[in-house]
């Protein structure tokens, strides 16, 4: 798979983020293309999540450019845009520490994702006219379909806080997908999952890419998962990008092994 025939969706140039004196992210260049599953890996504290937060508008980066190229729409620079703006443009995310809405049902969590794609206002909600009812029906159906896709349909009316851990992670993915993104950012989707769940997740992510045509950028520590599904892997250490390549290239890259296992990795 070469990059040339695929359109680039997200392009990050020289992204830098300082916290006080600490440079958490140091001039990172990175791009994600259509139909790609890209992984961002690196030891703990390398700045991966900070990178995500900058890209999705939760932090305003110190320097650099974040460019979104939605299909058929003009390119947008989203540095410092509000997170909801970024999501509306078509880039949705999940969180490292699951951030569901615990006191809402599973279905409602997904329905929240539909918010930015629907229009019913106050009057619509109060009067419940035909248009509003129709839209509401559509939201419910769309969300329910998504739940079926991630295999949570039978829990639709449960409170999300009562779901098992792995299911909560999948719910977060469904919720993000409800915003109809063209690019999905997943922050450690496999964390806390057991091996079976991880395998299922593996398949789910590939399905999302193939069936929904959504490109994916994920942060992950589970190397098996990363190596299995990624088209391209970016490795970060100390806020800098130290390697980019296919899983095989990364596997044998001494710099990467060193980053993970420690300096003298002669073993």
């Amino acid at each position, binding site marked *: 798979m070469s990059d040339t025939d695929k359109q680039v969706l997200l392009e990050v140039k020289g992204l830098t983020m300082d916290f006080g004196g600490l440079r958490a992210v140091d001039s990172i260049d990175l791009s994600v293309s259509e139909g790609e599953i890209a992984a961002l890996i690196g030891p703990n504290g390398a700045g991966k999540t900070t990178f995500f937060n900058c890209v999705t508008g*939760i932090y305003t980066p110190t320097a650099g450019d974040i460019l979104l190229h939605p299909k058929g729409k003009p390119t947008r620079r989203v540095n410092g845009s509000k997170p909801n703006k970024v999501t509306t443009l078509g880039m949705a995310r999940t969180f490292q520490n699951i951030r569901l809405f615990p006191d809402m049902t599973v279905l409602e969590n997904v329905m929240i994702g539909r918010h930015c794609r629907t229009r019913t206002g106050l009057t619509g909600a109060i009067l419940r006219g035909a248009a509003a009812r129709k839209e509401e029906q559509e939201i419910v159906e769309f969300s329910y379909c998504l739940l079926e896709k991630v295999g949570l349909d039978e829990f639709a009316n449960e409170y999300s806080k009562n779901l098992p851990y792995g299911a909560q992670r999948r719910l977060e993915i469904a919720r993000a997908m409800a915003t109809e993104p063209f690019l999905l950012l997943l922050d450690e989707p496999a964390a806390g999952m057991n091996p079976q769940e991880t395998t299922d997740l593996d398949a789910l992510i590939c399905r999302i890419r193939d069936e929904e045509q959504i490109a994916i950028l994920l942060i992950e520590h589970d190397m098996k998962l990363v190596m299995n599904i990624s088209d391209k892997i970016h490795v970060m250490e100390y806020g800098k990008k130290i390697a980019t390549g296919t899983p095989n290239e990364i596997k044998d890259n001494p710099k990467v092994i060193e980053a993970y296992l420690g300096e003298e990795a002669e073993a």
Partner: protein
Amino acid sequence: MEYFIELFLGGLTRGSIYALIALGYTMVYGIIQLINFAHGEIYMIGAFVAYIVCGVLTIYGFHGVSILIIAGLLAVVYSCAYGYTLEKVAYRPLRNAPRLSPLISAIGMSIFLQNYVLLAQTPDFLPFPALIPDFEFMEPIAHIIGSPELVILVTTLVTMIMLTLLIKYTKIGKAMRATQQDMSMARLVGINVDRVISTTFVIGSALAAIGGVLVASYIGQVNFYIGFLAGVKAFTAAVLGGIGSVPGAVLGGLVLGLTESFAAGYISSDYEDVFAFGLLVLILILRPAGILGRATKQKV
């Protein structure tokens, strides 16, 4: 110019009382992120206990400074006891509850304590004896600053210095700071966090009691309701200065006191409270965490 100085000193006096009470709010908030709404009531109880002690001692024939000292001490002791019990009863069972719960509990406690004093004592205003003597040497400038104001300023200053020393150098002070900065790390170095929280309530209550006794003997009256407005103002001061920050509370108290004094003096006292809260809104718009408050970045 003299008028300016008068207003300045008046504002300083008022502000230093606000600061004393605000410290209780800010220290508690700093550690457990709770607005202790009933703190104003602790201040009131301090003043009331002092009133009762003074009354009894006067009637049984004690005189002068001894009354002041005994009444002040007992006021502090009782306020501390109330503060301690308050935390145990109304807040500790809610340590892990959602944020709104302890706040509602605090509002409930505030209503409870007010009415408790009302029922146990009286709804009337009671005359608080002027415990602070008029000093001879103050007489020439008595029209600018009276002895009670001087005593309030000096006492506050001394209290603040003592508090600073306590926080800075004593074991418990350090434990309080450590708990505030990182509660679970504090437990990891062996600090009994529950005890630190209790101590914080006790110290805050002591400061409030000192404020209560000073104010009551300055204006010469007590009533079950005096805690409410004082509490709201002091809380405003704490937020103004940056809640959680000890120097912030002092600064906030002084800024608020001076603002009110100058606003009343140069503009009109009709809108005294409007100026106070207007200033608060203004500062929070410019600095959402208060003057000396640190903006905490939420971890994602």
